[in-house]
């Protein structure tokens, strides 16, 4: 057991018993943390692992949430039946959106994904086909029912979010150990070298996009159930900036980094409501300061780097 495994185990055990230790306010914060951490993990697959500059991740989170909301409220689907759609639709949209632009150089891709996010927000606000409910969004989403049992308590929602996060962690772990994960890693490290090794770059990048979108969509579904409502502000471009910042401030491709980032960005504001006004100012300053002091993030990943004993000794020449 190395240090990371121990830390991960402690983290998971604490999160598993968390609902029994706290009151309802903290439980709500716990759900928020789990949902946003899951989305941040999924962004980390795209941005941290594949190195694709995606600044429109709130789109997929939003599509998942809106899919659940629309299918439930307008078409009378059970929540549990909407979840497959909330996973598949973001995948389809991710491939359709990213497909034509995936070959773009980093910064251009960044701007294109910002563009998609702003278009997405306008689509939601302008109430397309009378489905998205315009600026107010959709209210009155049902509770989850499994075999006739109604899972309406916060504890139940907490465990749904917890299970999703654990699944996400398992997926990421498997990804890192698979051919796909290694391909993404090499693409991220050196695209030209990866290409010359015969790695099909657009394919793997799209794969990362689709996987990230699927997880974000599932998280969106839980988000919709938690608030039993969805509205465009939750999925605007500023949210995407937050997810983008979480991954990079925390440390890309680093799970503890993402957890720290989520905690700072989404949990602290819930704890200190008095600094809501100046919240973004402080975050902005913290983002600049973190990057200046630790350009690779607070807790950078070490996966796949050359082990210390193999590194050329810089001191002795």
């Amino acid at each position, binding site marked *: 057991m190395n240090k990371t495994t121990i830390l991960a185990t402690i983290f998971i055990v604490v999160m598993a018993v968390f609902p029994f230790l706290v009151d309802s306010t903290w439980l709500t914060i716990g759900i928020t943390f789990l949902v946003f951490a899951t989305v941040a993990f999924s962004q980390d697959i795209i941005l941290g692992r594949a190195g694709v*500059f995606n600044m429109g991740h709130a789109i997929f989170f939003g599509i998942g949430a809106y899919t659940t909301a629309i299918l439930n409220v307008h078409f009378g689907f059970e929540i549990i039946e909407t979840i497959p759609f909330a996973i598949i639709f973001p995948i389809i949209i991710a491939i359709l959106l990213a497909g*034509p*632009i995936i070959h*773009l*150089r*980093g*910064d*251009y891709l*960044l*701007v*294109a994904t*910002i*563009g*998609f996010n*702003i*278009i997405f927000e*306008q*689509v939601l606000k*302008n109430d397309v086909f009378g489905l998205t409910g315009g600026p107010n969004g959709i209210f009155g989403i049902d509770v989850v029912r499994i075999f006739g049992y109604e899972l309406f308590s916060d504890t139940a929602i907490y465990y749904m979010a917890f299970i999703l996060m654990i699944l996400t962690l398992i997926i990421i772990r498997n990804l890192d150990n698979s051919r796909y994960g290694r391909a993404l890693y090499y693409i991220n490290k050196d*695209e*030209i070298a990866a290409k010359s090794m015969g790695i099909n770059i657009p394919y793997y990048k799209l794969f990362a996009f689709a996987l990230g979108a699927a997880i974000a969509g599932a998280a969106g579904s839980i988000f919709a159930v938690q608030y039993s409502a969805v509205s465009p502000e939750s999925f605007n*471009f500023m949210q995407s*900036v937050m997810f*983008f*910042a979480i991954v*990079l*401030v925390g440390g*890309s491709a680093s799970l503890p980094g993402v957890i720290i980032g989520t905690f700072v960005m989404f949990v602290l504001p819930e704890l200190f409501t008095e600094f809501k*006004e*100046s*919240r*973004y*100012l402080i*975050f*902005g*300053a*913290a*983002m*600049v*300061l*973190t*990057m*200046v002091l630790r*350009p*690779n993030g607070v807790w950078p990943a070490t996966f796949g780097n050359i082990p210390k004993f193999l590194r050329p000794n810089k001191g002795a020449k």
Partner: protein
Amino acid sequence: MDIFLQQLINGLTIGSLYALVALGYTMVYGVMKLINFAHGDLVAFSAYVGLTIFSQLFGSSASSFVNVIIIFVLTSIIVAFVGVLLERLAYRPLRTAPRLSAVVSALGASLVIQNGIMLIWGPNMQIFPADLLPNTTWNFGGVIITFTQLCILILSAVLMAALFIFINKTKMGTAIRATAIDQDAAKLMGINVNKVITLIFIIGSMLGAIGGLFIGLYYRALTFDMGWLYGLNAFIAAIIGGIGSIPGAMIGGLLLGLFNALIAGYISTEWAETFTFILLIIILIVRPTGILGEKTAEKV
């Protein structure tokens, strides 16, 4: 036809504003390969600074040309100072860091400026006085041009021409172009790269400040988060023209202004932003280097 001509005038006005702001993006991108996300917020900041200078210095007294010029000069100086400070604090320490770190730093700086505006001036909309510039209008057979529009068109044309000459004909301009092509080689030729970058931030911030003041004079309503809207539009203008290219930013700004005005005039104002971004994405797919951008071998 009248509508078309009217929208043409409006489009050229907005386009000039975009072009002024776009120059700040394109120069920074050209030299540092960094999207300066904070530039749009600097533009919004300058509009607020201008408004405050007006109310502090001149209060209720009737506005005159001299007053307006004083506002422009003072605001440009203040904003240029903030721009240089921004570069020193947020970008200079990250020159050798991974590209994405600088992007996050820029986003952070943008949040700081945007919310700084909110904390200083409050979250409510601020209104620019209507009589700062004369309310004269000219009517050319149904097509109306206001004095403000004329000022924007003329002054931005003059500024852009001056910048074009500065970049292409002077020694400092040559240094800027050399640094944009290859920083290390420029350093070897004895160019002080730090000085060049500071200069770029001064020029870009000043042009942005003038753009911001014009936005205040033209639209009159200011919100603390308007920087993103104008910033993104200006950035799109820079991409349309070919990012890194100064004449490209000017052409891109004018084209985007016309495009916006025609969409607003003939199709819909609700979806205007969507059309702008669809245009952006089409351009990125078809010709990512823009109209005047060079086709270079892509490294990453």
